[in-house]
């Protein structure tokens, strides 16, 4: 995503070439892997800015769209604002300035440098044990730098080869409320979903789901633990059913699969089928098709992402070949993507031939193309066919009239509406009479 949205974005190429020598380290090549090792790079993407003497200026780990936001970060680093180098120099001069120490800790934290980040966070705590000398943002809340440092020491200790749950447990024993505490429970629960002894982990997971009964993350961790250990299956089913209830209209497929796993562990395959059977997968496919169609429709009219929009329209047609609504929408997307041949391929003569005896489908077909103002000959032919198939249905004659109206053949449209009035029942007649009057006015007859 960083490559497509930022590196390949020509908007920034002039900027890159003016200020930088651009170097790429590919982890799959030996020469690149050596550079990963040299700089102890733990995650991709990482962007590292170096001075010509090879010293590190700043780094950015991960990528969050949009590209403009990422570019602003790169430019800030280029200008020397809030960089690693800036804080490292300040720290060398004054290692007791809490803002400097905290900022430097976060730099190393971002880069997964557990050892240096933890050491600096400990300095933050030592400098401000009461947490009174500064705050930072955490999930739209404010927390003291000290509390954040304690939380991150706990989080960092949960990763790596040598996991230590002690710091996070100490954090959760000291603090009891707020988003950061919930995050602490989530992270430790995630660790215990796989790690720890059965007794220790279940004790904590029970505590976590009791404290946050509606939190998806801690409940999912509980369920994963049960699936992993195959113990406490009934409690696991209870939690799993609960989290799927919480997301009733759009459950996470992984959570549904977990519930099926638990039912299977109990030998209840019928129940597994009821939540994770054909209905489940049909529903997921339908949701996907809707999303694909929305994507194709959105981008087809904006002349961006046209290749993927076309691919999504193709998928819609493939997955819903019998559904008129999807065929029409796909045809509309193809037209917007300047691919009228493809529009007619999915919703054109072949469609008319296939449904040559289905008046309702042919009415929809003619109405669609009349509205689009395209394929009007095909629309007229289909509409006329409906009058043969359903001559006593006024909508058939109206369908022909609509196309004639689009072709500006108002006299012919009027004749068709007169036919519609002939066959319409009393309730319908007024509608067509009104329409006739409008057409006659347009034609200058009255």
């Amino acid at each position, binding site marked *: *995503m*960083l*490559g*497509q949205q930022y*590196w*390949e974005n*020509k908007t920034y*190429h002039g900027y*890159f*070439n003016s*200020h*930088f*020598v*651009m*170097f*790429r*380290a*590919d*982890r*799959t090549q030996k*020469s*690149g892997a050596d*550079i*990963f090792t040299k*700089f102890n*790079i*733990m*995650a*991709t*993407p*990482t*962007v*590292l*800015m*170096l*001075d*010509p*003497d*090879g010293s590190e*200026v700043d780094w950015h*780990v*991960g*990528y*969050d769209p949009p590209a403009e936001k990422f570019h602003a970060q*790169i430019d800030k680093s*280029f200008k020397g604002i809030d960089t690693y180098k800036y804080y490292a120099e300040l720290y060398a001069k004054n290692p007791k300035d809490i803002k400097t120490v905290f900022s430097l800790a976060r730099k190393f934290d971002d880069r*997964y440098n557990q050892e240096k980040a933890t050491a600096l966070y400990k300095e933050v705590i030592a400098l401000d044990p009461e947490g009174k000398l500064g705050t930072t943002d955490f999930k739209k809340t404010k927390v003291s730098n000290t509390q954040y440092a304690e939380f991150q020491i706990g989080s960092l200790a949960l*990763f790596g080869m040598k996991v230590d749950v002690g710091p996070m447990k100490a954090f959760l024993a000291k603090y009891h409320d707020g988003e950061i505490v919930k995050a602490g429970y989530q992270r430790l629960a995630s660790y215990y979903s796989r790690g720890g002894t059965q007794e220790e982990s279940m004790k904590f997971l029970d505590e976590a789901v009791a404290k946050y009964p509606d939190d998806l993350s801690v409940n999912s961790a509980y369920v994963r633990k049960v699936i992993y250990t195959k113990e406490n299956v009934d409690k696991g089913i209870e939690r799993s059913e609960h989290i799927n209830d919480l997301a009733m209209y759009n459950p996470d497929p992984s959570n549904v699969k977990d519930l099926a796993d638990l039912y299977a562990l109990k030998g209840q395959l019928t129940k597994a089928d009821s939540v994770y059977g054909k209905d489940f997968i049909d529903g997921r496919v339908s949701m996907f098709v809707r999303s694909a169609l929305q994507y194709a429709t959105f981008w087809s009219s904006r002349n961006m992402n046209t290749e993927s929009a076309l691919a999504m329209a193709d998928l819609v047609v493939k997955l819903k070949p019998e559904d008129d609504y999807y065929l029409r929408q796909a045809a509309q997307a193809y037209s917007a993507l300047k691919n009228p041949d493809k529009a007619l391929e999915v919703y054109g003569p072949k469609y008319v031939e296939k449904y040559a005896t289905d008046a309702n489908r042919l009415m929809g077909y003619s109405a669609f193309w009349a509205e689009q103002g395209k394929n009007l000959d095909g629309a007229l032919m289909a509409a006329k066919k409906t009058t043969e198939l359903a001559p006593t249905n006024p909508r058939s004659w109206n369908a022909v009239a609509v196309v004639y109206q689009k072709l500006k053949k108002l006299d012919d449209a009027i004749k068709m509406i007169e036919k519609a009035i002939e066959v319409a029942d009393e309730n319908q007649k007024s509608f067509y009479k009104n329409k006739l009057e409008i057409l006659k006015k347009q034609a200058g007859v009255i």
Partner: protein
Amino acid sequence: MKRQLFGIAVLMAVVSTASAQNWFKGSLDEALAKAKTENKKVLVDFFSPT
């Protein structure tokens, strides 16, 4: 924030594809030497295609 941590998959993998950007062809040392000559910095993209 999308990033891929080696060994421990914490978030979705990020794939960086072939780029129109002109990446420096030589070694990192050569890139640093060029940066010194041109009074620029070196911007290193650490990426993994998988």
